[in-house]
């Protein structure tokens, strides 16, 4: 057990080191922070932002004499902002996961990993932990922005709600990255891996919408598979075990399929 843990740590550290040395990683993180900062500002303080809407609502309420339905600014902001972050992740996660195995295959280093006394799933777990850690690093600055914004809210917001929402974002990312890792293990072309992962995420994202147009058990199953639905649950502060189980299943499925595909598919490409 100690040996396996040691192997996972070795792979994990190698992956992290890889991100530090990779220009692509810096570019992705930079673009993500830029876009996230822009959306943060626009949603909070922009002309159509939450605060403007709340002010407008107050004004209308005074003019019409009837009280306007109250707007819970911090929670509303969190919902919209993390919704946008989820969509942004849709574009960024395939780029993070595309090279996980495709690059190893292309550089021939998969041959090293596959002939070392390390199990395939230990490699897969180490890689997934590495890329999820990188994603968490990308999300951390957002927490700082929010902490500043929420500190001004009156009455004060409960810290568990934004924390749960971000746990949701990270779980969502881990699930997508795990599946993306599996797709990456099927090919030696990073671009192809990114594109296929993107298609898969779009499908899992909108399967809720598709489900609504299909009735019967098929539609129901599709609805449950939807990432969007379960992500929104967590963002709204609803801690539902079925959501956690769904994300965990996607993560385990991705790791499992990756380990299997390395066993089965390396044979056909040489």
């Amino acid at each position, binding site marked *: 057990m100690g040996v396996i843990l040691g192997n996972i740590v070795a792979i994990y550290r190698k992956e992290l080191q890889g991100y530090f040395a*990779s220009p692509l990683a810096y570019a992705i993180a930079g673009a993500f922070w830029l876009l996230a900062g822009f959306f943060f500002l626009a949603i909070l303080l922009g002309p159509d932002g939450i605060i403007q809407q709340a002010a407008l609502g107050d004004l209308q309420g005074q003019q019409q004499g009837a009280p306007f339905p109250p707007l819970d600014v911090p929670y509303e902001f969190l919902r919209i902002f993390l919704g946008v972050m989820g969509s942004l992740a849709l574009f960024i996660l395939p780029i993070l996961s595309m090279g996980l195995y495709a690059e190893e295959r292309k550089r021939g280093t998969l041959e090293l990993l596959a002939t070392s006394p390390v199990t395939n799933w230990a490699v897969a777990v180490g890689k997934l932990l590495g890329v999820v850690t990188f994603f968490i690093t990308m999300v951390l600055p957002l927490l700082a922005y929010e902490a500043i914004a929420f500190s001004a809210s009156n009455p004060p917001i409960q810290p568990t709600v934004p924390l749960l929402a971000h746990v949701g974002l990270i779980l969502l990312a881990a699930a997508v990255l795990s599946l993306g890792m599996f797709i990456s293990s099927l090919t030696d072309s990073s671009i192809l891996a990114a594109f296929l992962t993107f298609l898969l995420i779009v499908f899992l994202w909108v399967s809720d919408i598709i489900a609504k147009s299909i009735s019967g058990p098929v539609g129901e199953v599709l609805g449950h598979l939807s990432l969007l639905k379960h992500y929104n649950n967590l963002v709204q502060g609803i801690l539902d075990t079925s959501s956690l189980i769904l994300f965990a299943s996607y993560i385990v499925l991705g790791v499992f399929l990756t380990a299997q595909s390395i066993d089965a598919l390396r044979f056909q490409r040489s």
Partner: protein
Amino acid sequence: MIKVEHLSKTYGSTPAIQDVTFAVQPGEILGFLGPNGAGKTTTMRILAGYLPASSGTASIAGYDVHEDSMAVRRSIGYLPETPPLYSEMTVEGFLLFVAQLKGVKSRDRKRKVYSAMERCNLIEKRKVLIRKLSKGFRQRVGIAQAIVHDPPVIILDEPTVGLDPRQIIEVRNLIKSLAGEHTIILSTHILPEVSMTCSRVTIINRGRIVATNTPENLMEQIAGGIGYELEVEGNALTIKKILQVLPEVRLVEAIPAPDLPEKRCLIRVVSERGAEPGDKIASRLVGAGLSLYEMRRTVASLEDVFLELTMEDTLVQG
């Protein structure tokens, strides 16, 4: 130490290797020689556990490469055809990573990495990013990663590709110095490499083993006796008739030599095994009134052996 029996591998419907059987004794260096595309890399990959065989068995240190894959992986060091390197790591960082991956205990790791770097002449480059190394140094890092955990069996797929002549000599000496403690199998398509480093040679062609022996025995086996090259003035056919009479002569043939002066020809004579009929050849030629301009003994090279073995096979298959 390494035992391969009736190994076959088919990609789709094309056979890569067929019925390959050989064995490597502990401490031995076996050269796996063959033209490009003969199935060397496929065999190496099966031994390293990277590919499964279609049929047949291979075992290393008593463990079956397919059944006991983990035990086999612990006992081998493997340099694939393209050295598996992470270009963003430093030489030392990469070797530490590989050592950890191969299960070297953390207290031994630094020492073993240092010793591998020393043996591969990498000490001065240990803080350099692999990306910035020349091809020769990368190849050496590849060899270092194969020996860093002191495995009993080392599998090297074309270890000297891309090196300059001086580096090739260094690598050959390194490989020779590893023999004894380690059992080594190395593949190559370069002939001198085998005669210089290996204690035994297996020649593979079109996926089949055509010979296994020591380099000396192979040369002896093919060439049979001693060869002579003669430069004589006269008709090649007449000379052939004169020399074939000798019982010690096995073969007489004319070698095309367009740059010789007119009327002269170049003749190759191969003696029967154990015979040395140089004096008789000379006296017969002179006795027949022919002028002998040059006569020298030739030793069959491994190259002849290789060509003969791989050509024969081509003829059989054609």
